């Protein structure tokens, strides 16, 4: 329990930092980056807004995961993680990862058919594979959480 509390506290600090960086990226870095790229290569300028929207959306998905993780950590701290209330936040995480996966696959297909060098598609493919692993892992963890919750509920009926 002692290590648990310390790790939860540390994780929360890191989550706040991560969230801050993500917001910074989302609001300042990414739109500026694509505006700059549009100015540098006018033949690709039509990609400016789609690329901005897609990247901002992907960052939003990560932010949703961060917030849901924060909420789950609160449940861990209150020793209520094996209750039905945790399932909603786990579902939020799975949903956010699924949404990001769909968008990433779309981008991969679009870029893959247009590309004339394999660098970017390969990088995107790596990203899609990583997100796939993460998403499936979350589904497995959700099943385990559900089983543990059922066990906990059953044990509470034992006197």
């Amino acid at each position, binding site marked *: 329990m002692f290590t648990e509390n310390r790790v939860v506290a540390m994780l929360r600090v890191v989550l706040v930092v991560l969230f801050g960086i993500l917001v910074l990226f989302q609001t300042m870095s990414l739109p500026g980056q694509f505006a700059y790229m549009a100015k540098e290569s006018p033949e690709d300028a039509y990609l400016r807004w789609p690329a901005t929207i897609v990247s901002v959306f992907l960052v939003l998905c990560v932010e949703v995961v961060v917030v849901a993780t924060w909420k789950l950590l609160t449940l861990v701290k209150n020793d209520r993680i094996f209750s039905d209330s945790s399932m909603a936040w786990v579902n939020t995480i799975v949903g956010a990862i699924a949404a990001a996966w769909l968008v990433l696959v779309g981008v991969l297909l679009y870029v893959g058919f247009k590309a004339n060098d394999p660098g970017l598609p390969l990088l995107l493919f790596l990203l899609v594979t990583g997100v796939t692993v993460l998403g499936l892992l979350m589904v497995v963890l959700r099943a385990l959480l559900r089983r543990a919750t059922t066990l906990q509920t*059953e044990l509470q*009926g*034992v*006197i």
Partner: protein
Amino acid sequence: MPIVVRIDVELAKRKMSVGEFAERVGLTPANVAVLKNGRAKAVRFSTLEAMCQVLDCQPGDLLEWVEE
């Protein structure tokens, strides 16, 4: 509920109050109430042992199977 917990019978025989019973067994009065009205899903052997010790009886005196 085919298994009935007969705590009240044993308590009445010994003229012991529910509060005293709960304290001596180490259960909360709320849990004793759950046992008495048949809402318990299971009883730990350690709880059963403590109840038998306090009431000086056998598990069979506390648990009874009734046909539905």
